[in-house]
């Protein structure tokens, strides 16, 4: 798949590094990989995916919505092109004309080379941000299809190593970053002491089950304190649970539906066990997609509790007057996590919160639902070989933020924040993405609490 190409631009004449690198997991033969991929692609072909794939007119407009295409100008990053093998499988396996295509030999099985080449396109260069889904004149939810295509890639053992590694770790340890029930408990206690906040853990009964992202637990532990502080101030009966603390879902991001289910079920089971009326999701984008919108479908029936992103919870609390905050005198730009805002529908919540905080909120150009992704979503931030590309698309994000000339940058997703941190370091950038939750927690009007 990599042809010999000379890099004439460089000072020293040398053979161009092949652009696509791919990883393999397991020791399946090529044929087995193809068979697995085809089967697990095909599994997704219900009416929804079929209508999407049959509606495409190859207009190419989705390219203009994709940060990878806009940043590089490389046509292979056209979102619908990333689905080419998936589409091919559809036409061969499940499309209305599939029997005809198979009979006439018009649509072949995908090849191992194709799958290998597309690993880069389905993982390294897609954050499943869903911007393309909004530009598509045919209304195709391309991002949803990418999620489906990853199912086949995972089963074929053809996903980036690092993503596989964290997903596997989440499967084995319960957390992608190696947080165990014990270490979680320790860190919760530590934060309780550190911030002098009453922490509830492993209560038998609670109205609210609070869950956290490993990224927060390991990297931004203040989020735990802030969450507790808010819930205490609200007078909620709430708890953390060591048998259901992890909000991230790397099964979903990597494309392993079994692991996705396993991860979601831990939270669902814990919530049911404590009789929770609500599961409070942390500042994490894809956790919202995984539980809020996919959770019930994994469970197979409506969930017996509400699911809220912490920004929604805060907005409700502030809007109803149950929670009061002090005025914060600075200008801020807010970065919408794709899965919460664009894909999740909670775009208004952070804006309500910012209004209550009295900050000078500078909306980014094409912010909110049309926001540029930070470039780290969909598991991309874990993939080392994707770094260079990720920095390229991050430049789009930086421009968008800089144009606001705000004092501070806020977000409500730990994964976005760590992507910002990485970009900040790489570019020696002036902005640090801060937590919206923590800003609220820091400015609570204590007398009302």
């Amino acid at each position, binding site marked *: 798949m990599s042809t010999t190409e000379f890099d004439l631009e460089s000072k020293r004449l040398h053979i161009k590094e092949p652009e696509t690198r791919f990883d393999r997991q397991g020791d399946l033969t090529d044929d087995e990989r193809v068979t697995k991929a085809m089967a697990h692609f*095909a599994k997704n*072909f219900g009416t929804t995916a079929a209508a999407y794939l049959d509606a495409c007119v190859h207009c190419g407009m989705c390219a203009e919505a994709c940060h990878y295409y806009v940043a590089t100008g490389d046509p292979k990053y056209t979102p619908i092109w990333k689905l080419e093998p998936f589409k091919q499988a559809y036409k061969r396996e499940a*499309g209305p004309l599939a029997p005809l295509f198979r009979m006439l030999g018009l649509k072949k099985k995908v090849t191992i080379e194709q799958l290998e080449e597309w690993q880069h396109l389905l993982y390294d260069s897609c954050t499943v941000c869903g911007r393309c889904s909004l530009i598509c004149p045919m209304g195709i939810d391309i991002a949803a299809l990418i999620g489906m295509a990853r199912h086949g890639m995972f089963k074929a053992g053809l996903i980036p190593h690092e993503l596989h590694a964290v997903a596997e770790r989440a499967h084995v340890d319960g957390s992608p970053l190696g947080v165990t029930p014990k270490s979680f408990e320790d860190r919760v206690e530590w934060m309780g002491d550190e911030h002098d906040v009453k922490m509830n853990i492993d209560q038998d009964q609670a109205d609210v089950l609070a869950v956290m992202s490993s990224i927060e637990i390991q990297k931004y532990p203040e989020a735990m304190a802030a969450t507790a502080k808010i819930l205490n101030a609200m007078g909620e009966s709430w708890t953390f649970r060591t048998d259901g603390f992890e909000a991230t879902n790397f099964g979903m991001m990597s494309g392993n539906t079994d692991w996705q289910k396993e991860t979601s079920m831990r939270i669902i089971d814990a919530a049911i066990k404590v009789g929770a009326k609500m599961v409070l999701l942390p500042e994490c984008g894809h956790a919202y997609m995984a539980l809020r919108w996919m959770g019930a479908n994994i469970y197979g029936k409506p969930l017996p509790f509400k699911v809220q992103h912490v920004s929604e919870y805060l907005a409700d609390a502030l809007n109803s007057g149950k929670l009061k905050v002090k005025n914060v005198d600075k200008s801020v730009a807010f970065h919408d996590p794709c899965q919460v805002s664009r894909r999740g529908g909670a775009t208004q919540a952070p804006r309500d919160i910012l209004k209550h905080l009295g900050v000078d909120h500078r909306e980014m150009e094409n912010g909110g639902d049309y926001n540029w992704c930070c470039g780290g979503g969909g598991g991309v931030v874990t993939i080392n070989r994707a770094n260079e590309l990720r920095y390229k698309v991050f430049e789009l994000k930086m421009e968008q933020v800089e144009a606001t000339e705000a004092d501070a940058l806020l977000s409500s997703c730990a994964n976005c924040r760590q992507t910002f941190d990485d970009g900040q370091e790489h570019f020696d950038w002036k902005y640090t993405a801060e937590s919206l939750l923590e800003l609220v927690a820091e400015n609570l009007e204590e007398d009302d609490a």
Partner: protein
Amino acid sequence: MKDILTLGEILQARGVSRRGFLKYCSATASLLALPPALVPQIANALEQARRPSVIWLSFQECTGCTESLTRSSSPTVEGLIFDSISLDYHHTLQAAAGEAAEAARHAAMEENKGNYLVLVDGSIPLGNPGYSTIAGMSNLDMLMETVEGAAAVVAIGSCAAFGGIPGANPNPTGAVSVRDLVKDKPVINVPGCPPIPMVITGVLAQFLTFGQLPELDRHGRPMAFFGQTIHDRCYRRPFYEQGKFAETFDDEGARKGWCLFKLGCKGPITYNACATMKWNDGTSFPIEAGHPCLGCSEPGFWDKGGFYNAVSTGDVGSGKAFAGAAVAGVAMGAAAAAMARARQKKTMKEA
């Protein structure tokens, strides 16, 4: 050709002046749709032309073509031409009957062997020779016997030219056209139901004037008369372009003389001279009288759907067939989906 006089000699003998002859020649040029500049050549040619012998055979026909020809006011230009041809056999027009008539036909064939013209109106039944006979002779036999020594054959009217109404579906007599049978002689088709009389005489004039056959289109029709569509020469054509149509026979558009396309006018696909030559000595033609063209000079005009169906409508078949196609489509869709579901299960098992 014996002692036959030239046309010039005939006219001279009748005391027709040269001016009169020139006037006649320019009328002939006009008839043949030749440019007026050719009048001197026509005059030259006609002066030298000799009376040809003509045998007219009538088969499965309604005599409308003969009526058309004879009802043109006489003596006219056409009359002059008929004066200058020798109509040796026409069983409707000739005085002789029975054996005498047949004898006249045989005599004409003998005397003018290789030079006479055969004019045919009516189609020829192949189903059963008894369907149409003359003097006990089947139409087929008479036609084949007569054309044997002919210089050319002119099929007059749509029946002779294309089978016409006798040949219309289901064609009970097995009627065929002259061209279907006569392969080794030139056959000129002068279709129409009936043809414009001036077109009939025009074809004869052409033969008379230049002694050769006119240029024909793919249906064997002289280009001079059948080179353009009624639609292209129709005075109502501007209404077509403007999108002004009569929707019914008694609406505003019909009263205003708008285009009859929507009422089924076959003008766009009909090649004939009606729109310019018109009928009844240039009085009018069907469209001018407010009726759409039936397309009578086209092959199979009787079977081309309804006279009042617009040219652009298609024969889209029956509702049943549509329903059948719809049911088949849904069934195939359901089958394809069922196959896809089964295959999803199967491949998952294999994987």
